[in-house]
């Protein structure tokens, strides 16, 4: 059974070269954002508490949707779960190969053609040459880029890059797939195709972690919900319950 769990994960995002602004006025107002900044004795900002004591336990078939305001730690949490960032405290326990699509178009070579990029990205994701050759046709057809695959990626629109990246990341029967918001950059038809593809593989006991601001996308792709607030989990449970709570808080 695939597994992805986080135990007491905390992370401070270090910041460098920030001098205290000379015109900064002393303030008594304490909003939540201010408490997340870590300052040294001279008042310069040296870090941001990006995640505080996050606990999660996902197993095969779980599809977690993460929601929360901008700057609430969603992407940082995804990066930690994907293994890109190492937390300052806490541990991750993982069973299964993790694929992530956190930054759209990152990892594509602009000068190389779409077809060559399929090969390079899949290599970088840890797949063997034989596996790639086997899945090549599937990736090419799912991306629906057709003859544009002969063109350098630098000529692609954001949506086309996303199609290519998504096709590559999902082609190899991902065991654990970690996705950030950007799926909403696709057109309606692509969103439908993508949802279908994600459902297919999660049906085969994979784990999905998906951050989005789009309630409909979250509801159609996830069965669990996590509401992140100021770097901490505010609510975790069935997607409909968490979504209702989150929307009530936002007054929508």
């Amino acid at each position, binding site marked *: 059974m695939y597994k992805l769990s986080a135990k007491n994960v905390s992370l401070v995002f270090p910041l460098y070269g920030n001098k205290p602004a000379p015109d900064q006025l002393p303030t008594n107002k304490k909003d939540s954002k201010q408490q997340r900044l870590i300052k040294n004795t001279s008042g310069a900002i040296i870090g941001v508490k990006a995640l505080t004591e996050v606990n999660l336990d996902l197993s095969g078939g779980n599809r977690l949707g993460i929601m929360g305001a901008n700057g609430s730690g969603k992407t940082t949490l995804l990066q930690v779960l994907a293994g890109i960032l190492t937390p300052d405290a806490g541990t991750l326990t993982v069973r299964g190969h993790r694929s992530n699509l956190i930054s759209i178009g990152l990892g594509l070579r602009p000068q190389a053609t779409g077809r060559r990029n399929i090969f390079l990205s899949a290599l*970088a994701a840890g797949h063997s040459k034989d596996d790639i050759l086997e899945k090549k046709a599937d990736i090419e057809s799912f991306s629906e880029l057709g003859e544009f695959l002969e063109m350098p990626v630098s000529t692609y629109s954001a949506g086309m890059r996303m199609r290519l990246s998504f096709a590559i990341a999902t082609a190899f029967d991902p065991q654990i797939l970690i996705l950030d918001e950007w799926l909403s950059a696709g057109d309606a038809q692509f969103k439908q195709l993508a949802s279908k593809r994600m459902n297919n593989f999660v049906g085969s006991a994979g784990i999905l972690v998906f951050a989005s601001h789009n309630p409909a996308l979250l509801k159609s792709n996830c069965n669990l919900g996590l509401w992140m607030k100021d770097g901490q989990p505010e609510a975790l449970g069935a997607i409909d319950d968490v979504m209702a709570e989150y929307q009530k808080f936002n007054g929508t």
Partner: protein
Amino acid sequence: MPKLETFPPAHRWPGQRFVSDISAGFLAHQIWRNFAWEEILSRYHRSALGLLWIVFGYAFFVGGIAFFFGGFAKMGLGSFTIYVAIGYACFQFLVANVVDGCAVFTGSASWIRSTTLPYSIYVYKSIFRSLLPIALQLIVVAIAMLYWQPPLKWNIIFVIPAFAIFLINAVAIQYLCGLIAARYRDVTHLVGTITRILIFTTPILWVREERTGVIGLVADLNPLTHYIEIFRAPLMGDDIRTISWFVVAGFTVFVWLAAALAADRMQRRLAFWV
């Protein structure tokens, strides 16, 4: 079923992070070979002569140096041309390790922030890419050697261990410079400043054996002198000085230890710095 893994992995002995990263990256050679090749292709994209520019450019450069500086050297024009051609190719390769090393991680920032590949992959990629210019420059050396026929000896086989030492050093130097330059951005500028001086203090455009006093001493204090000589001397039919082997061996151990220590302390934070 894949096995259960815990992150961050247990850290049992100093240098463990570095060793596991270096070995995991090396095994993923398909990735760094392909990416290095991709970068070479894109660098010479839309250029009609492409890689031949390296050969022509180098032949032209060496010929020009031999013409202008040959008169200052006591050795004959043929020997001096070969001397410059080998010395400068080695110098460029070795210095490029430091210069490229400073950018090895910052230049791959988008990859470091989006994949979980071992960091050493970027180092191997960078070294693999820099093998191409030196290989093409050595063609110019080979042509010059065929033309002037320097008196070679059995010790020419030393060029093989010498070049292997270049590569072994390259891994640690690029890794170390990459980590330090990602954290302290001034290092890149400092390196640029130093390399400008090194071109004069390293015996490439002048012959060390012909100089005595301060200049000879400066050359001997410069580790680059010894690195270049273990490769150049056997190709010129000269003996390699024992002190050169000692300096090179000592320096190699030093950079590997420094890289391991730096990786232990800094590697975990790299994704924040790039």
